[in-house]
């Protein structure tokens, strides 16, 4: 089992992440301390959660570009609700965040499911709409830390066993996702609907509905992350998480989620997000020039995509080993 993991894509990737982590440790020993490791994980928590939602969407051959805008909108709503009703129970506020996120995700999903609009088109549209709605809602004004209640800011920072609630939420999401994708019918459907929509359809899977669920989950997680983001940085404004959807998609791609659907694991996706998290946290520590930082982040994504593309090529070679394709080898067999 262990041997298999080591040779899998997830195994190799986690090795790379670990190597990177230790290498930075040689420059700055504090980087690999327990407390800093927790803080890196905590810092990556939101990315992990969003990447897991995005993974479902990509598995079903779609893409959700609106996640970051969803984060901004939901974050703004909960921040404003908290501003005007500071005594409102955090549990209710959290449900509100989940609900709004789910609603925004459902809009994407319904367009894809019922109207068969390509997801890149619809989420490109809702990406702007959700951010525009954030602007209209807030009138461009910021909600700042002194306008937020103590509980609102304090919750993700509250530590249980020295680990902040924010990180615990990511851990719970990972466990739930792992269990769902491995052991539930619902999770399995994402793989079959994305791997071969035709075969899934013939097997009685409603592919459109599965895609809808993917967007619903992605939106719900984005809603939760909306609250977490706003609370973590103690500020809500229109440009919150601007461009973050690209990091989310990058985390999936690096983690081995195939952009053409059907392939990808929870473990891979989490490691992909951690990869970005470690890079993000390591670059300022080792003092790379800001211009190089951009280039390095870009390079990392390209390398991951190329690695994925070449593994897709392997896949194609195996598929083609059918009568038609074996023509080339036929003459040698006949002599």
């Amino acid at each position, binding site marked *: 089992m262990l041997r298999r993991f080591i040779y899998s894509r997830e195994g190799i990737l986690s090795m790379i992440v670990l190597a990177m982590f230790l290498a930075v440790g040689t420059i700055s020993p504090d980087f690999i301390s327990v407390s800093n490791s927790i803080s890196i994980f905590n810092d990556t928590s939101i990315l992990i959660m969003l990447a897991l939602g995005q993974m479902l969407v990509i598995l079903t051959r779609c893409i959700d570009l609106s996640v970051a805008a969803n984060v901004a909108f939901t974050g703004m709503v909960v921040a404003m609700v908290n501003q005007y009703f500071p005594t409102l129970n955090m549990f209710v506020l959290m449900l509100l965040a989940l609900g709004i996120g789910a609603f925004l995700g459902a809009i994407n999903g319904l367009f894809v499911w019922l109207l068969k609009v390509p997801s890149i088109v619809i989420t490109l549209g809702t990406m702007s709409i959700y951010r525009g709605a954030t602007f209209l809602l807030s009138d461009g004004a910021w909600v700042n830390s*002194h306008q937020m209640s103590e509980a609102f800011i304090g919750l993700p920072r509250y530590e249980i066993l020295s680990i902040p609630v924010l990180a615990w939420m990511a851990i719970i999401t990972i466990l739930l996702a792992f269990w769902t994708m491995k052991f539930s019918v619902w999770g399995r459907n994402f793989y079959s609907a994305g791997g071969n929509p035709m075969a899934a359809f013939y097997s009685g899977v409603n592919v459109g509905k599965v895609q809808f669920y993917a967007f619903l989950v992605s939106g719900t997680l984005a809603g939760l992350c909306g609250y977490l983001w706003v609370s973590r940085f103690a500020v809500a404004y229109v440009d919150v998480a601007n461009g973050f959807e690209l990091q989310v998609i990058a985390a999936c791609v690096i983690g081995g989620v195939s952009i053409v659907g059907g392939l990808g694991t929870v473990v891979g996706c989490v490691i992909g997000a951690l990869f970005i998290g470690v890079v993000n946290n390591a670059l300022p520590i080792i003092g790379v020039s800001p211009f190089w930082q951009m280039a390095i982040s870009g390079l990392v994504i390209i390398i991951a995509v190329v690695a994925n593309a070449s593994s897709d090529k392997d896949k194609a070679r195996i598929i083609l080993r059918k009568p038609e394709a074996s023509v080339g080898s036929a003459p040698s067999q006949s002599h």
Partner: protein
Amino acid sequence: MKNKLITACVLASATLFASGAYAAEQVRVALLVKALGIGFFEAAYRGAEEAKKELGDVEIIYTGPTSTTAEGQIEIINSLIAQRVDAIAVSANDADALVPALKKAQQRGIKVISWDSGVGKEGRQIHLNPSSNSLIGEMNVQLAADAIKAKGKTSGTFAILSATPTSTNQNIWIGEMKNSLSQFPNLKLVDTVYGDDLADKSFREATALIKNHPDLDVIVAPTTVGILAAAQAVSDLGLTGKVYVTGLGLPSELAGHVHSGAIHSFAIWNPIDLGYSATMLAYNLVKGKGTKTEIPMGRMGTLQVDENGDGAMAKPFVYDESNVDEFSSIF
């Protein structure tokens, strides 16, 4: 059909006449901002309204795109030209991109000034800096010195957390800060990092600064997202009082952190004054008041214009525990 056409013509000329008559009485000044809904510019608009009250015969058109893009501003400039305003006072999203459109406006007899964030010389008649770059640079270092004094130390170190490495304003101010360091022999600049005006990146950069420089006393962030994220990072690391954050930001956004103690003091020009001055200048240019080097701007005195058409309004204004609440309700 013919009748309808004639009616339309009559109506159109009537409207034209009416607006012409209106323009003769009212000076129409467009206050074009980087984007709508930003607290800073909303405050500038209040200042413009104050100038309007004082002057009487001014109409303020407060406008801007929904996001900070040069394209959006160009579109608005073109529509302002079509509306035949008398003056445009612009805070530009791009120093060069707006120049052609503003040139066109000037050719149509519209007076153009830029304020806060300027445009190229050909694009405007004068540029009103809220302050001068050297005054801002000096103020930022002064703030760092104040924070170190608040810690009870006589000398110390500071680092700069900027926006993007390509941001012109930021780079000029950082240059000026370095220039004015000679006046503060007890201060040492140890690092300059960039948070790209993104909350998460700024937060990480601030955290890394503190880790990389254990003896760091002050983080100076001359940008709002940066100063907020740095203040939050300091609170989260439990270093309030050990590391101070300062720089430029709005009282409404920073009041919480001033109270928590992460920020001792910070500065910003008074945007109300800025909007007021920009309106006054635009009005006076339309009315032909003032000379090539000196233009009056009401209660803010007289703007000294240099050979490039630039002028500085005043020194940035310092906010701390004593006055932040008073201003935080304003902007």
